[in-house]
């Protein structure tokens, strides 16, 4: 981020939170949404791969569904942010916008959708195993 953009970001932030205006404000809170969203993606992918062992992120079925969800997410998120139903503290995000929304929202959405689908598939697999134990199950 250039010095000039940083200053603009500071100004917007100061306007948002005048009571907490400080010289070092952005250093203290910099990009917290960006980092937590990245961490959430890492945690959810790890859960899918090594805890639930559903391995959705290795399947084209998951990525096909996610691509469809992402398309509609960009519309819904674009409405929420474009209409300013939700507004972000500029100090917490990188800055660029994707259909009005910060790209961090895509990471947030990916973590939410992937965790949901992992739990759905995990619950379904558990039920399938109870219904047909491996020793006597028919193979599919």
């Amino acid at each position, binding site marked *: 981020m250039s010095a000039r953009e940083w200053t603009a970001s500071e100004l917007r932030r100061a306007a948002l939170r005048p009571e907490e205006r400080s010289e070092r404000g952005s250093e203290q809170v910099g990009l917290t949404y960006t980092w937590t969203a990245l961490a*959430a993606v890492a945690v959810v992918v790890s859960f899918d791969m090594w805890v639930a062992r559903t391995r959705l992120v290795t399947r084209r*079925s998951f990525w096909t569904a996610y691509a469809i969800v992402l398309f509609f997410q960009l519309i819904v998120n674009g409405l929420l942010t474009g209409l300013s139903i939700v507004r972000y503290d500029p100090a917490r995000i990188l800055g660029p916008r994707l259909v009005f929304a910060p790209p961090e929202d895509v990471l947030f959405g990916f973590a939410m959708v992937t965790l949901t689908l992992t739990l759905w598939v995990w619950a379904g697999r558990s*039920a399938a195993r109870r219904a047909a134990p491996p020793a006597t199950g028919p193979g599919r």
Partner: protein
Amino acid sequence: MHGAYLLILAACVVGTLPLEFVLRVGVYARWRRLACAVLPVAVLFSAWDVAAIRARWWHYDDAYLVGVTLPGRLPLEELLFFVVIPVCAVLTLEAVRARKPGWTFGDECP
């Protein structure tokens, strides 16, 4: 317009209903399994949202909200968002399964 956010969520629910009733994916019909997938996500992401609102990462414009605020200053619409969007995601996954019966999803019988 106070109902704007709620209207967007309603459009998500209505827009995906044909998957349940035309494509017959049976997601709402398997409501216990759906609850296992959606409730933990709704709790976790609502908690994240409450923390973010408290830390002022973002805020909501009251002009677009119906005005029901849950504990933690969470707008009702946000809690609904964390239920509606996960349900839409499950409907989408099952729609892919309905159209691509040869693909694996990880929950096939072992």
